[in-house]
């Protein structure tokens, strides 16, 4: 193949090291893999602590998901740009600096535009810094891959995390307090006749059990995930 013809327009560093198109099959896989086959929560079992803490209601879970998508996409891109400049010995410190500046940004943004949610999420926005998924993807992916790929990987993993978060929050809010997005969905006549909210759904053990049930269902459909014993 002729080298000249193969040259593609590049934006920043996008596609510089690869001959793939922007949305080639490989790149699409970066987005879809973390949703099912390599889900950060149900397969890698990372980021469980925040999945327990902020899934009592749907709204904080959605805000949390959006924040994590932003933080992961940006931090993956930044680290990927800097990847050849970062000395190996202090890479974790560099990661932390990048992630915490981004998290501080999200925190201030929420305080300015969504004060109620920010109060509800309180410490947990700050704790995105310690979310193992963010750090894990930087170390495992962004440090060794091109910018565009790292961006897709960050978005994909954050969505994979968010899907589970929202799913768990959906069931916990619906069964635990009879609401969705803060509005009552279980009709009044049910409460008057016999229905009672399930208090256990509001306690964190039930979040763990819900995640467990999701893993169980996922594995019974996706046979690839079953380890050969």
């Amino acid at each position, binding site marked *: 193949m002729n080298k000249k013809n193969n040259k593609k327009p590049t934006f920043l560093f996008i596609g510089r090291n690869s001959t793939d198109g922007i949305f080639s099959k490989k790149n699409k896989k970066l987005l879809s893999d973390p949703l099912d086959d390599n889900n950060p929560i149900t397969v890698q079992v990372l980021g469980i602590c925040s999945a327990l803490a902020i899934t009592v209601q749907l709204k904080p879970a959605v805000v949390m998901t959006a924040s994590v998508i932003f933080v992961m996409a940006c931090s993956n891109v930044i680290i990927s740009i800097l990847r050849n400049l970062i000395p190996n010995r202090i890479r974790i410190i560099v990661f932390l600096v990048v992630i915490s500046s981004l998290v501080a940004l999200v925190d201030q943004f929420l305080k300015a535009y969504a004060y109620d949610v920010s109060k509800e999420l309180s410490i947990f926005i700050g704790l995105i810094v310690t979310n193992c998924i963010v750090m894990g993807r930087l170390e495992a992916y962004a440090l060794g891959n091109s910018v565009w790929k790292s961006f897709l990987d960050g978005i994909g993993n954050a969505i994979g995390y968010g899907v589970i978060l929202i799913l768990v929050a959906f069931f916990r809010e619906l069964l635990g307090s009879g609401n969705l997005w803060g509005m009552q969905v279980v009709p009044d006549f049910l409460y008057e006749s*016999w229905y*009672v909210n*399930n*208090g*256990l*759904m509001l*306690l964190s053990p039930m979040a763990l*059990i819900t995640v*467990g*049930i999701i893993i*169980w269902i996922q594995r019974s459909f996706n046979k690839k995930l079953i380890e050969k014993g």
Partner: protein
Amino acid sequence: MNIRSIVDNLKKPFEKGEKLEKFYPAFDAFETFLFVPNHTAKKGAHIRDAIDLKRVMITVIIALLPALFYGIYNTGYQYLVQTNDSFTTLDAILHGSYKIVPMIAVSYIVGLSIEFLFAIWRGHQVNEGYLVTGLLIPMIMPVDIPLWMVGISVAFAVIIGKEAFGGTGMNILNPALTARAFAFFAYPTYMSGNQVWVSEASNVDGVSGETILGMLAAGNSPEQFGVLEMFVGSIPGSIAETSTLMVLIGAFILIYTGIGSWRIMLGGVIGAAITGLLFNFWGANALMSFDWQNHLIVGGFAFGIVFMATDPVSAAQTIKGKWIYGILVGILCILIRVFNPAYPEGVMLAILLMNVFAPTIDHYVVEANVKRRENRLKTQLKTAR
């Protein structure tokens, strides 16, 4: 025509290659319920006792019956003694059956349907473990709990407590207690307080009832109940746990047939008695100064230690381990009762906690035994030289 040939005729469509092959596990469950299975091992010599899992479970159910019947009577008695001036024993039994039989039915229908579904889905045999669990669950619930809550608790216990781990014999936690713990945390207003222990207490004026431990936790002394009443069981409480006398009859059956471990039971009683005695000397609150021997006969302690803690699947397996396990259940039960006013009854949480630790206990008992034998071998080798 005898039963055997009827069963054989019914069996045909379920055999391999036939129409209803998928449902063979369901059929197998009924067949082995009626007859001791005649499948034999193909190779080697095997000697097995005729007492298989089904026979074990039936024995436990027989041991449970005295407590159940007394529970039915007591449910009616607690209600009628507060409303009617005169009533007969029959009235009490009728009222009790009216409340309790539907609960047992719901428990069995929900639990067994789930068991059958899983057996057919996985192609396993239906295990009979649920026969006991299904009877235990209604026996340890408050009498006024709505039936749908019983159903959901049963579903949770069978699916999450048992099937998720692989079915009968694989569960970490006692399924009956899992159901109760689920109901306890999910619907706290129906599982504690002073309105749920006597039938209809929240609907009929003038009927009220609090358990003795509940009164003590609130700082009142249960003066109206004597030691004899606590022992015989004519006190408010969960349906079938009130009567220590009936539980003792069950314990005797279990120990005599060798099905329940006397080590766990005795260990539990020793642990609870010593802890209770020590707290008697301290005596800082009403529960601490409650006599240690009364601690053993009120609440669910007796029922829990005899029927729940001895569950052969979730308890410790080694002989030393059984002692440790039993004693710790006893100690923890009294500790939870005394120190946590939100949980005046501690036996449920004590047994569940020790269920989790039982494999650890066994592991260290086995390791210690390995070490002891290694050392013995070493000294033998030394002397031999």
